[in-house]
C-alpha cells in the first residue's frame, strides 16, 4: 500500500499548498463587508472545466496507484512469474507519444487561431490513438498466442487488467476528442474550441504519463527502482 500512500501524500501536499493560500487563519466573525483583499480568494482564474478535469485526473491517478499497490503486494507471493513484454509495446509507446505531441501542436495552433492546423493536430491525434489501441490489442493477441493467458499466472492477470483499464480510459478520451473534432469542423466558437483542445491535451498528457509508469511497472524497472531506493534508505 506504500504507492497509494505516497500518491495521497502528493495530493495532500497539493491540497495543503492550496489551503495555505485560502486564509484559513482568518477570523470571519470579525470581518464584515467586502474588503478589497477578500476578492482574490473568491475563485480561481482557471476555467472551471480545467479544474474539473484536474480533480478527475487526481481520481484516475488514485485508481492506477491502487492497481500498482496491489501489483506490488501480489508480486511478493511465491507463485509470481513475470511475463516477457512484447516488443510491440515500444512501438505503441512511440505512437502514444506522437498523439500527445499532435495534441500539443493543436493547442498551440488553437491559441494562434489557425483552424486548419487545429484540425490537422486533432486528426493526427485521433488516428495515432486508434493505432495505439489496435497495437495494444495486437500485443494481447501475441501474448495469448504464446500461451500467456489471463488465468495462468497473476503477472499475466495484472498485465491484462492494467493495460485494459488504461485502454478503457483512452477510449473514453476518444469520445471527448470526437466531440472536439466535430466542433472544430462545424465552426465552434474559437475560445470554446481552444478550451476543448486544451482539455484533450491535458487528458492525453496525463494518460501518456500513466502509460509510461505502467510500462515501467510491467517491465519490472519500477520494482528495481524501488529496490534501489530501499537499499539507499536502509
Amino acid at each position, binding site marked *: *500500500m506504500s504507492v*497509494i500512500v505516497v500518491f495521497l501524500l502528493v495530493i495532500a501536499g497539493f491540497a495543503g499548498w492550496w489551503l495555505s493560500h485560502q486564509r484559513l*487563519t482568518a477570523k470571519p466573525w470579525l470581518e464584515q463587508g467586502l474588503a478589497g483583499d477578500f476578492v482574490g480568494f473568491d475563485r480561481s482564474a482557471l476555467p472551471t472545466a480545467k479544474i474539473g478535469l484536474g480533480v478527475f485526473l487526481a481520481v484516475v491517478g488514485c485508481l492506477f496507484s491502487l492497481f500498482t499497490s*496491489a501489483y506490488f503486494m501480489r508480486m511478493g507471493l511465491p*507463485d509470481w512469474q513475470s511475463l516477457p513484454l512484447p516488443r510491440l509495446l515500444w512501438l505503441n509507446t512511440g505512437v502514444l507519444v506522437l498523439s500527445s505531441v499532435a495534441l500539443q501542436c493543436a493547442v498551440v495552433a488553437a491559441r494562434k487561431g489557425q483552424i486548419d492546423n487545429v484540425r490537422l493536430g486533432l486528426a493526427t491525434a485521433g488516428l495515432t490513438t486508434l493505432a495505439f489501441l489496435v497495437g495494444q490489442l495486437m500485443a494481447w493477441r501475441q501474448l495469448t498466442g504464446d500461451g500467456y493467458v489471463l488465468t495462468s499466472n497473476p503477472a499475466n*492477470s495484472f498485465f491484462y487488467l492494467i493495460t485494459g483499464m488504461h485502454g478503457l480510459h483512452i477510449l473514453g478520451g476518444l469520445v471527448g476528442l470526437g466531440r472536439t473534432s466535430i466542433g472544430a469542423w462545424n465552426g465552434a466558437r474559437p475560445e470554446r474550441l481552444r478550451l476543448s483542445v486544451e482539455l484533450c491535451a491535458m487528458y492525453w498528457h496525463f494518460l501518456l504519463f500513466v502509460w509510461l509508469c505502467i510500462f515501467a511497472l510491467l517491465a519490472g524497472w519500477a520494482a528495481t527502482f524501488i529496490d534501489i531506493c530501499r537499499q539507499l534508505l536502509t
Partner: protein
Amino acid sequence: MVDVTPADAVPPAEVGEVELYHPHSWWTKYVFSQDAKVIAVQYSATATAIGLVALVLSWLMRLQLGFPGTFDFITPEAYYQFITMHGMIMVIYLLTALFLGGFGNYLIPLMVGARDMVFPYVNMLSYWIYLLAVLVLVSSFFAPGGPTGAGWTLYPPQAIMTGTPGGQDWGIILMLSSLILFIIGFTMGGLNYVVTVLQGRTRGMTLMRLPLTVWGIFTATVMALLAFPALFVACVMMLLDRALGTSFFMPAIVEMGQQLQHNGGSPILFQHLFWFFGHPEVYIVALPAFGIVSDLISTHARKNIFGYRMMVWAIIAIGALSFVVWAHHMYVSGMNPYFGFFFATTTLIIAVPTAIKVYNWVLTLWRGDIHLTTPMLFALAFIVTFVNGGLTGLFLGNVVVDVPLSDTMFVVAHFHMVMGVAPILVIFGAIYHWYPKVTGRMLDETLGKFHFWVTFLGAYLIFFPMHYLGLMGVPRRYAELTDMTIMTESAHHLNSFISIMAFIVGFAQMVFLFNLIWSIRHGREAGGNPWRATTLEWQTPQTPPAHGNFGKELPIVYRWAYDYSVPGAKEDFIPQNVPGDFAPSRESA
C-alpha cells in the same frame, strides 16, 4: 444603525453569470432534470426507498435472533443474505447517497450562492447511474440463488465459493457490478460537488465564510473521490476472480474434495483494498453529519458556532487522518504486530480533532437561547450518541481490547451507534430543518416529536444491550445461537427484547414517512425563512427556490454564516447577504 461602508457598494454585475440549461418539457423538468434541486430530491427518494428495504431486512434478522427457530423461512442462508444486503445498502446506497447525493446536491449550490452545479449534465448522469446501480442491486433479490450472503465486507475467498449464498450464483456478480456502477456514478456527482465549492461561490463567499455544512460535505466528497477507487479496484479484481478464474485474491483451495483452479492469491490484499476505502467511508458519512449538526445547533440555539476556525481545521484533520488508520479493521488478520501499533496510534489520534468538535458543539449550546424544535432535538441526540459510539471506538482501537472483542456483538453495537444511529439522527434533523425550504411547508411538529422520542430512546434500547451481549462473548454473523453455553436464559431474553424494540423503532419510521408525504399538501405554510437562519438558502426570493435558485441577481456575501444574537442588531440573526457593520466596537468609533 446600518453603516454601509464604500467597500460594501459593489455593483452586482460583477458576479459572473452562468449559462443555465432551461428545461423545455415536463420530462426535462422533473425526470431528466439538470437542476441540482430536482436531482437532490431524486437521490433522496431513491435512497429512502432502498433504505426501507434494508429496514425490512433488519426486522427479518431480528426475528431470527430474537425468536430462533420460530420462523421456518429464515434459513441460515437467508439470514446471511439479510445481514449482507442490510449492511451494504445502509452504508453505501443509503447513507453515502443521501448525504452527498441528496443534501450535497440540494445545499451546496444554494449555500454557496450558485445558480446550479457547475456541470449539470454530468450531475444528471450521476443520478441515473446511481439508480441503475440500485436496480442492479435489487435485481439480485430475484436472481437464481438470491443475493450474496458474504457479509458486507465481501471477504474472499468465502465470498465467491459454493458454501456462501450467491457465491457461485448471480448474487456476488450483481453485487460487485452494482458497486462498480455506484462508484462511477458517484465520481460524476463528486466532481460536481467539489468543483462547485471551488468555483461556484458567489462574490464575497470566501472559504472561511462557508457554512460548516458545506465544509463537511466538501471534505467528505474529496475523501470519497480518493477512497472509492480502492473499492473499485477490489471489486474489479474480485469480479475477474469469480467470472474469469484469475487468482488475485483466491488462494489454492480445496472445496468439497475438489481442487479449485485458483492458486496463490492473497485474501489479505483484498482486506487492505477494502478497508482503504472502508475506513474513510466512516468519515465520508460522519463529516457531512458533523457539518449539518453544527449549523442546526447554531441556528436553533440562536448563537454563533463556538470556534469556527477550529471546526474547519478539525474537519480537514479528520479527513486527512482517516486515510492512515484503515488497518485497525484488520488486527485479527495476522498482520505484523508493529503495524497494529502504528494503526492503533493513528486511530487514537483521530479522537483529538473529534473531541474538539464535540467540545465546540457543547460550548455553542452553553448559555444559548435553545429552542427545542424537532431538528434541535435530533441534533442534541446526535451529540450524545456520537460521544457514546466514539468512546467504544477508543476501546476497539486498542489492539489488546480489540482482539477478544473482534467479531462480537460489541463491534456491532459500536458501529451502529457511531455510524448508524448517529448519522441517521442527523439526517432526520436535517430533513425536519430543510423540508420547509424544499416543499414550502413545515413537517408536523407533534408527529415529529413522537418520531424523535421513539427513535432516540428506542435506538438506545436496541444497541445498549448489544454491548453487554458482546462482552459476554456473543458472536456476530451467527444465524443460530441456541445451543451455545454463553447464550444464557437472560441473554435470550435480552435478544427478544432487542427485537421487539427494533420493531417499535421501525414503526416510528413509518410515522415519519407518513409525515413527509402528508405535509407536502397539508403542512403549515412555512414562509421563506421559518427558522430565522442566516445562510443563503433561506434568503431565496421564492420558496421552494425556483430554477436558478436566486432571482435576477446573485446574492453578495458580507459576513460569515453565524451572526446570531449580535449585540446591537435589530433582530437576533443577520443573513449573510445583508451589508453593514453591527459590531458595537465600530459603532462607537
